[in-house]
């Protein structure tokens, strides 16, 4: 049986798994790890995808099994939870600090779900200014709404001229 202190150890092991795309943060920091519970001898880990096509999900499931295995939990079930959908608001304060320290701008608050049809954005950006993770300047320009992974956009700092990535607010 997995109980008490064991379950806490399982939670710690699962929470420490780094994200494959953003290895400076863990799956717990990103809000991908939703729950760790016990069912008899099995540890059941529930994760949620950030984006529908995120190819890291499989890698995360593998790393969870490997890490929990090393922590002494041989029987691990990884489940997917689709609802409620992931939002960048679930990234923890610690996660945001780690992202910034690594030169990636953390997301601002996500737009609340609209009551009616989703409003159209024809301007370049409706967002509040994104602060440069390097020099802190609020004078930054979006250079692309997309980047090397689904979760990021590209920016450039107008003050220090450094390009940087921004974790999109969704």
């Amino acid at each position, binding site marked *: 049986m997995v109980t008490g202190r064991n379950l806490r150890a399982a939670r710690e092991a699962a929470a420490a798994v780094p994200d494959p795309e953003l290895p400076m943060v863990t799956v717990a920091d990103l809000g991908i790890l939703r729950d760790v519970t016990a069912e008899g001898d099995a540890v059941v880990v529930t994760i949620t995808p950030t*984006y529908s*096509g995120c190819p890291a999900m499989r*890698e995360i499931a593998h790393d969870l099994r490997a890490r929990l295995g090393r922590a002494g939990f041989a029987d691990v079930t*990884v489940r997917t939870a689709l*609802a409620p959908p992931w939002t960048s608001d679930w990234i923890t304060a610690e996660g945001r600090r780690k992202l910034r320290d690594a030169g990636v701008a953390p997301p601002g608050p996500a737009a609340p779900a609209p009551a009616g049809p989703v409003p*159209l954005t024809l301007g370049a950006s409706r967002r509040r200014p994104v602060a440069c993770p390097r020099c802190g300047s609020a004078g930054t320009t979006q250079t692309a709404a997309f980047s090397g992974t689904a979760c990021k956009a590209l920016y450039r700092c107008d003050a220090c001229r450094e390009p940087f990535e921004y974790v999109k607010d969704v």
Partner: protein
Amino acid sequence: MTEDQFDAYQSLAEESEDHRWAFGTGFTDPLEGVDTSVPDGVDAVALAAYCLMLADDALVYSHRLQQWMTRLPELEEETAFANIALDLLGQARMLLARAGRAEGCGRDEDRLAFFREEGEFRNVRLVEALDADFAELTGRLLVFSAWRLALLSELAGSADPVLAAIAAKGAKELAYHRDYAAQWVVRLGDGTALSHEKMQAALAAMWPLVGELFRPDPVADALPGVAVRPEALRAEFDAVLDAVLAEATLDRPPATPVALVDGRGGRDGVHTEAFGYLLAELQSLARAHPDATW
């Protein structure tokens, strides 16, 4: 670099029975651990057929967008379309898995994607065409994403909780796909005389297939509270298109009757000539190596 940071890369090189970063068949089930039982009172056969339609729209269109990779004018546009294609592929995978489970005949996402014939695909024909130029690419993305965003936003309230969850997630993605496409249509429409002309011509070229998106469908009619009737999406779609076209100084092409073959279209398994070639490319590798995983 800490041990934690290193592990993520190290694990990629590990020997494993698991198929790592697989590009092909043999993926894990995208609905693993999700309760996929069909709610009481819902017609499972119709639910499977409905999910298959929405899956096929995303799968086929994703493939068309992937064909643009390495051919776009800027690296930023490459990443944009690659990301959009990936989002749609993810939506297709979950919807195919949902269709397979509801159908209950043991067909998984790979079986449905790679081993159906042309006439068994249920996608709308708008997504089949090979875009002639960047204007057609961005114009089609605007039409597709404005329509699919309206659809998925409604489906987020579906009585099937699995379909509702897939839709709620997808709607967030479609919102930025639509904004991206709309901004390009405005830039080209309200750009030079040549870009305006090409954007107007692009809309005219695809317009005969737009009406199909809003055709009443017996499968949707058989799923009250679960599916969204296509004709109900027209008002939101028109409002969005009118707003973008006005900003882009473009004219809405004149309404044309829905192009059909003997009264049938993509939802009935009747497709355009371009589709067979697309499907051959999409399926050839999986069919040459059936049941292979790598």
